[in-house]
Every structure is written in C-alpha cells, then in structure tokens.
C-alpha cells in the first residue's frame, strides 16, 4: 500500500508528464501554423491557406488537450501540496498568476478569434491572432519555467514567518537557471512541433498523397527543426554548466559520478549500486566531463559521496542522493535523441537540396516514426530536472516530504489518481484517434484530402 506522499508524487508525475506531452507540441505547432499563415498572407496562394487549415486543425485538437490538462496543474499545488503552497506562495504564486494574466487570456481569446474569425476579420488582423496565440504560448512557458527555476535555484527570497518571502523580484526574474532553462525548453518544444509536422508530412509523402501540400510542409518543418535542434543542444550545454555551479548533486547524478574527480571523466555506460554508492561495469572517458563542465581539461567535478557529506553537514543527517539510475539514463536518452534530431533534420535538408526529399523512402519512413521520439526526450529532460532535485522540493530549502498536504489521505488520493488516470487515458485515445483521422494519407480509392471549405468558416 502506497502512502500519501508516494501517491501525491505519482499523481504529480503522471499529470505533469501527460500535460507536458501537449505543451511542447503546441508550442512548436502554433509557431509553424503562424509561419504558414504568414506565407499565405504574403503570397496569397491557396496552398498555404490549405496548409494553415490542415495543421491548424491538428493544432487545435492538441491545444485542447493541453488546456484541459493544464487546469488540473493550476490547482494541484493546493490540493496535494498545501505544505509547499504555504511555504512558497509568496514567490511561486507570482509567476503563476502573471502567466494567467498575460498568456492564458491571450491564448484562449485569440484562439477563439482565429478559429471563428476567418471570414469576420481583416486578413492582417486574423494573421495577428495566430501569432498572438503562438507568442502567448511561449510566454506562458517563460513564466512557468521562472517558477520552476526558483524551485531549482531559489534566489531573491528571505526566510520569514516560516516561509520563503519575496525580497528581490529582479533577482527572481533574472535567475540564471531560468535564463538557460527557458530557451532550452521552448526550443525543445519547437523541435517537437517541427518533427510532428515533418513526420506526418513524410507519412503522407510515402503514400504519395498530396505531395504538393506535404513536401512544402516538410520543407518548412525541416528548416524550423534544424535551427531549433541545434539551438537546443547549445542551450542544453549551457544549462549543464550552470547546474555544475548551482546543483552539483544533480549533475553528479546525471553523470553517475560517485567520487570527486579533477580532471573529471565522463561515464558512457554504468550500472549503479545506489546503496553502496558505487557503479559496476562502468566505462569512463577521461577528461571529457571536465571539458563539458568547465571548458577545460582539469576542472574538478564533485562526486555524490562528497556532496552527500556536505549536505549532511549543512542540513543534518539524511539521504540527499537523487535516484541515480533514472537520472543518469534519462540524461543519456535525452542527449542521444537530441543528437539524432539534429542529424535527422540536417539529412532532410540535404535530401531537399539534392531534390530527393519526396523520393528517398528510407528517410521518409524514419522521419514518420521519429515524430514520437521528442516526447521521450522531453519526458527524459523533465525527469533529469525534477528527479535530479530530489529529495528537495525547493532546493536546499524545503524537502518534498514536507510539502505534501497533511490533510489529504491515501483514500482521497486513490480516488483522484484513479479518476485522472482513467480520464487522461481516454483523452489520449481520443486525441490519438482524432489526429490519426485528420492526418492520415488518403487510402487507395479515396479522393485526396482537401480542405475544400477554403473560406474557413468554422463551427463546433
């Protein structure tokens, strides 16, 4: 039988990872739809209007799933984590409220205007609507990542009245962690959206369905993804270097580094024995971690044993080592996939340049399957970030065990857990089948897919 703490953590994990399927996807997809509509605005070609309507329809399906799972997020802190809410509300509530005021209102209102406004609004105003939706989506992630960055690296606070109170707003807004994690996460969203468009386009091209529409879509997606995936890698590297300084324990866990090393070696493969704080069957590359962490050959990187001792000295006895194996392998999965995304988009650009984008079926097959991989990479990144912070909820200030709601028992949590899991499962099936229905290539004997209602009149 699980206790309330484990249940609350599982519930947060399930609902957040699930929500985080749709958020990055719609971040990227809204940008792409806005770009496509801009092409339509500039050229007046029906092909671009069709493209906008086609991808816009998929965007709205996925956006809806992001919205409904997002409502749960706004209240979950109070429901399951009231101890946390009391402790951090003074600071954490600020970005959350600003997110609603500056982003959610814009997204929801202008999406309504965009969806129903094709025939009601002047062309330029209508284009502005989708751009506002896209920019507000990115802006919303700025605020929520500012809140998250404060949990990772608390700054600008003073401990008073048994909680963290606001002291320096500017310090919170310029939190170094936020400055590296915001671009990394948003760009990862762009890659997710880009590979979604690329994947579905490749799938349709494979079946020789609407090659005009999907080749152009794939080209736009390729440029977008190539730029974004390169930038994801750069910002990820910066974020890791920042983590060395501010959350050395997380970085040590990411690298499975038990002993302090200088020069530090990078682990390529290891099986971890967390209890004895050692690794078995490990393969390490000398110097590499020093280069990655400090851009030099000799820099010291602290290991988990030393950091555990430091934490005990500062915060009293306890286990301060995160779940190493999950963090270590999630990190490797994320980085590996990130590299793959770069290669995939560069290869696609090469094929396009060679005039063989539509004919290299091997590539199209890989690209159409690769659309599922960003979700694994995003989830892995989330796990590195959030599990690597354990046992802390607010790093160095509040432990996860102290954040949970004292009045919510396992029975209640089982009810909500079961409820959310069932509903989310059904939503997943529904969302998947709808995307499949509207995105799939026309079968033999079916006429090719057109968005024949090109006036864009929309109604539920």
């Amino acid at each position, binding site marked *: 039988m699980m206790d309330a703490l484990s249940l609350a953590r599982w519930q947060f994990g399930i609902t957040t990872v699930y929500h985080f399927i749709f958020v990055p996807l719609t971040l990227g997809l809204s940008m792409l739809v806005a770009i496509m509509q801009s092409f339509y605005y500039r050229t007046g070609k029906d092909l671009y209007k069709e493209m906008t309507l086609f991808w816009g329809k998929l965007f709205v399906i996925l956006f809806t799933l992001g919205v409904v799972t997002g409502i749960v997020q706004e209240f979950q802190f109070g*429901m399951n984590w009231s101890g946390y809410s009391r402790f951090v509300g*003074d600071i954490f509530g*600020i970005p959350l409220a600003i997110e609603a005021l500056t982003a959610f209102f814009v997204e*929801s*209102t202008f999406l309504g205007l965009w969806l129903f406004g094709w025939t009601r609004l002047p062309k330029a105003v209508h284009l502005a609507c989708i751009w506002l939706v896209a920019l507000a989506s990115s802006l919303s992630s700025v605020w929520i990542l500012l809140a998250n960055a404060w949990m990772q690296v608390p700054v600008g606070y003073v401990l*008073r009245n048994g909680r963290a109170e606001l002291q320096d707003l500017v310090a919170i807004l310029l939190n170094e962690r936020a400055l590296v994690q915001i671009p990394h996460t948003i760009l990862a969203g762009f890659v997710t959206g880009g590979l979604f468009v690329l994947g579905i386009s490749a799938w349709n091209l494979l079946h020789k369905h609407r090659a005009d529409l999907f080749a152009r879509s794939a080209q736009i997606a390729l440029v977008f993804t190539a730029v974004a995936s390169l930038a994801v890698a750069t910002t990820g590297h910066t974020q890791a270097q920042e983590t060395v300084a501010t959350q050395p324990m997380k970085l040590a866990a990411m690298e499975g580094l038990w002993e302090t090393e200088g020069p530090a070696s990078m682990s390529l493969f290891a099986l971890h024995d967390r209890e004895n704080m050692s690794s078995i069957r490990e393969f390490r590359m000398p110097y590499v971690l020093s280069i990655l962490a400090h851009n030099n050959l000799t820099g010291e990187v602290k290991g988990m044993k030393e950091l555990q001792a430091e934490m005990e000295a500062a915060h009293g006895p306890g286990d301060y080592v995160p779940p190493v194996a999950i963090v270590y392998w999630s990190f490797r999965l994320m980085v590996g996939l990130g590299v793959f995304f770069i290669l995939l988009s560069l290869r696609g650009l090469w094929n396009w340049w060679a005039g063989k984008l539509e004919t290299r079926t091997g590539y199209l097959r890989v690209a159409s399957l690769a659309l599922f991989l960003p979700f694994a990479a995003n989830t892995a990144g989330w796990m590195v970030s959030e599990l690597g912070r354990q046992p802390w909820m607010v790093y160095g200030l509040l432990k996860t065990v102290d954040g949970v709601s004292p009045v919510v028992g396992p029975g209640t949590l089982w009810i909500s857990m079961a409820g959310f899991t069932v509903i989310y499962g059904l939503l997943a099936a529904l969302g998947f089948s709808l995307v499949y229905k509207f995105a799939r290539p026309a079968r033999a004997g079916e006429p090719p897919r*057109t968005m024949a209602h090109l006036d864009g009149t929309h109604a539920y």
Partner: protein
Amino acid sequence: MDLNTIWFILISILFIGYFFLEGFDFGVGILLPFVSRDDTDRRVVINSVGPFWDGNEVWLITAGGAIFAAFPHWYATLFSGFYLPLFLILIALILRAVGFEFRSKIEAPRWRRMCDQFLFWGSFIPAFLWGVAFANFVRGVPIGADMNYAGGFWNLLNPYALLGGLTSLSVFTLHGAVFLCLRTEGEVRERAHGIAARLWGPAAVILIAFAAYGYVATDFHQQMGVVPGTMPLLAICSYIAILVFLRMERDGWAFIATSLTILFGAVVVFEGLFPRVLLSSLDPAWHLTIYNASSSPLTLKVMLGVALLFVPIILGYQGWSYYVFRQRLTRESIPEHALNRHGQGEKT
C-alpha cells in the same frame, strides 16, 4: 485602504467575472438538451458560446493563481480541504471542453450524444458545486489552529451548502437562458425565452430560501446589520428587472439584469465574508482572514501593479471578441461542410 483589502477586492472581481462569464456558459450547457430539437439546433446552442467559453474559463485559472500569489494560506487550505468537490469540478471542466471541441469532429450520432452529456454534466456539476463551495465559505467549515481543514467530504454537503448549490445552479441556468435569447434567433430563442420566463419564479423561491437560511446559518446579520444595505437591495431589484425585461422581450436588457443579479449577489457574499476569506466553524480565532492568510506586502504590491496593468487590457480584447461575434446565430449560420474530409461535402 490597505493592500490586503485591495487584493480581497481584486479576487472578488476575478470571481465575479468568472461567474458572470462562465455563468452563461454553464447555463447554455445545462439548457442544451431542453432548447434544441435536432443536431443543427444543438450546434446553434453550442456555437453561441463557441468562441468564448475557453477565454471565460481563464477567469477561474486567474482567480486560482491570484489566490495562490496573494493569499497562499487560503489557496492551500481551500484546495486541500475542498479536495473532492474541486476534483469533481476539474473532471467536469475537462469533459465539458471535450464536448465543445471534439463534438463536431466525429460524425457518429452516438459520439454526439455522448458529447451532449459531457456538455450538460460538465456545466451542471460546476454550476452546482461553486454554490456549495461559496455557501461553505460563509457558513464556516472545520478549520483547526494550524489553518488546515479538519473535516471530511460530507461536512461540505450540509443543507445550507446544498441550498447554495441550488441557488447558483438556478441563477446560472437563468443567465444562460437569457444569453441564448440574446445570441440566437427563431425557435431556439423562443424556447430559451419560455424557459427563462418559467424558471424565474422557482428560482426566486430558491433565492429567498437561501437568503432566509443564511440569516440563521451564517453571521451575515452581524456582518451587515439588520438592514443589510444597498447591495442586497440592488440584487433584488435586478432580479425583478429580469422578469420585467423578459416580459417586454428586451433580450439585451434582460441579460444586463441577470448579469447585475450575479454581480450584486456575489458582492453580498464577499461583503459578508470580509475581512475573512474562510470561516472556521470550530473557533472564530481560527478564521482565515485577509491578514493571516496573505503574502508579504512586497508580493501584494508587485502583483497589484501587474493586475492594474493587465486587467484593463484583458477586458479590452475580450470585449472586442464579443463585439466581433455579436451577430445572432441561426440554423443558417451553421456551415454544412464543417468537417470536409477527402473532398466530399459531408453533412454534420
């Protein structure tokens, strides 16, 4: 006026905005099965709030975020204490959104009927439970010295709170009926008008019962005096005005009257609460107030600046979106080809 009071007023405004806007969304959802005869009718009803419902819902999200930022203890106690009702509201809002967004994306009549159920219950449950919640705020719930809720699920379903739920349910339904009169034409409008006229009397009885019960079950008479003042009076006047304008077939004015009824009714509730935010039924010393539940003055100041900057902008563009879609909907406004797949026109 101190910062804490200003924030109490701001959060009241957010909730009033939410009840005014989502109130008619809920009403429309509840009336969906009763004002439509076929699928086209139902689509007219659904599309009357089509471009707006999501933006309206953000008022709740914002109220939640603002409570978190301004009164963290209120946020923590309320949502961990009112856990299961809030859980039900969340599930209902999820299903309602599915009903709105995905109903016309699948042609099967069974799916459409299921979505109609989502829309009905997804509107009915929150419309009822928000009344239950606010009645409990003013009546008081078991809150201990540690600010934590000490009761169970059933404490929340006391007779006074249930009557509060009926009150909000009937007022929102009436509000939705009048909104439909304003937004539609033809038979749907006639039916909505008939329902509004018939609902007015029973809803008045519920309102009076709730007010009278409140006189006994809460400390409103101490808070507001024996002569309760102008706000309740204005609420009563607006409620009577609804019937007058319905009789005169002045839909716009009737809608203003239901809106004002919600506005003044909610103001009365917040007046009765002030300066408390959540009453403890165990000991008056353990009430959560705008002082012991609040954030630091600096946070309140920062957030006040943000709110004063952005709320007017939000009101501006949300108002504009209502202006853009101001035309009344008819059966002819529902495009036949909303779902054109593979080039074949489909009737949906």
